[in-house]
């Protein structure tokens, strides 16, 4: 396996590792950095479970080669909040009952985070568009949209 040095910022920390050239960003985050909050769902860019922010924009980390993130900035769910100090979006997800099995939740939270950075006061329709790349089989999305609305109100205060 051809190895190459990869240097990037993950959740605000500069990381430098010698890693194979053929791994995905998803593999690098989960298997090398053990940031297992990022989930693999379909592995072909359809479900959004592996969503991370690359230079602030949500991407499917299963479709990004690790080395194409060289020199760039990645934020995963671990960089949004911690169990002791939840991000307002995470608090809103709990409050609204927007989590059932939880598998889509990290991706949903990151998609919502990226939306609210750009548009702090989205309409319900804008929220639905923003999370439409993230599939959820449990909730019917209603309470996830409620949660993002609630988070927008919380952050607006």
């Amino acid at each position, binding site marked *: 396996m051809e190895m190459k040095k990869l240097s990037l910022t993950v959740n605000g920390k500069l990381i430098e590792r010698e890693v194979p050239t053929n791994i995905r960003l998803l593999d690098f985050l989960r298997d090398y950095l053990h940031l297992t909050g990022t989930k693999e769902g379909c592995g072909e860019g359809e479900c959004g479970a592996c969503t991370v922010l690359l230079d602030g924009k949500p991407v499917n980390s299963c479709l990004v080669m690790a080395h194409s993130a060289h020199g760039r900035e990645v934020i995963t769910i671990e960089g949004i909040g911690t169990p002791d100090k939840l991000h307002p979006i995470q608090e809103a997800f709990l409050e609204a009952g927007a989590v*059932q099995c939880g598998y889509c939740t990290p991706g949903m939270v990151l998609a919502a985070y990226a939306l609210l950075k750009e548009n702090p006061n989205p309409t319900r329709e804008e929220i*639905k*568009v923003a999370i*439409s790349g993230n599939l959820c*089989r449990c909730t019917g999305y209603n*309470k996830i949209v409620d949660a993002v609305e609630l988070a927008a109100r919380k952050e607006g205060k």
Partner: protein
Amino acid sequence: MKKRGIGMASIFYGTGYGNGFPDVSSAVVEIHDDGSATVLTGAADCGQGSNTVLAQIAAEELGIPIEKITLISADTDCTPDAGTTAATRQTYTSGNAVKLAAAKAKKILLDFAAGVLAVNTIDGLDIKDGYVYVKTFPQKRISVAELASHARFKGNRLIGEASFTTHSTMVDPETGQGAPYYPYAFATQIAEVEVDTETGKVEVIRIVAAHDVGRAINKIAVEGQIQGGVAQGVGWALTEEVELKNGQIQNPSFTEYLIPTALDVPEVTPVIVETYEETGPYGAKGVGEPAMLPTMPAILNAIYNAVGVRITELPATPEKILKALKEKEQKNA
């Protein structure tokens, strides 16, 4: 042209395994020296919220705050079997098992408390907010923590274990007649759709979903189950189809097997109809599977109401709707 229509469907659904099949859940509850309690249940929570609901039931039965409950579920190392998380049965069957187990642990504590509080039977005692008190003289009370440690040092074990079996009867194998399930859940849903007569595309505008769930132990969780079920029903009605050829699935990916996205699921208004099911834990039945059942027929009825065609083969894709519209036109010509 875009045409709107409204459709309705009602269902009844037998919860539990039914048909005389063994339908058993077991649970263990232990009260600890600090006034907390542990619940052991084999019920697997796959997101529907059984961990929360079973902890709520234990807390209610024991009269202690839910924060004092540690619930361990679905761990073959230590939890007793509670059957499968299927058949809309965990709230009802495991809920009953947890409630019975908690009641047994509580009785051991109250038997001990009767001596301490100088009452001659435990009928006059109850537990609330972490205190055992005399019902007719509530000022006379003692904390569960204090009692539990004293009881234990006297050699008592504050452990209750119980099994609950959901009643069901095998149907007559000749005629298929009988009453295979108990209890039944009931639901009615109303769908509003908009059909584009040029493209055949159906948009679901809104769904109102009324469900008799018995008593709702956790309202937000019940709403979430209803909304999630409706979303699956929308997919069932409009997009989801497993294409088989010689036993091989032809569309094994989300690119070809389309489940609803946030843009496909309408605003769902859950209406929780709380009947009191005498045999359920605090009157609860179940909600899981019934949630998706009325959605598909309600949508198909709404399509009929909008454009006058009956779709009899699922899913109701734009192609099928255009074909049906064309046939209707030819018939009328």
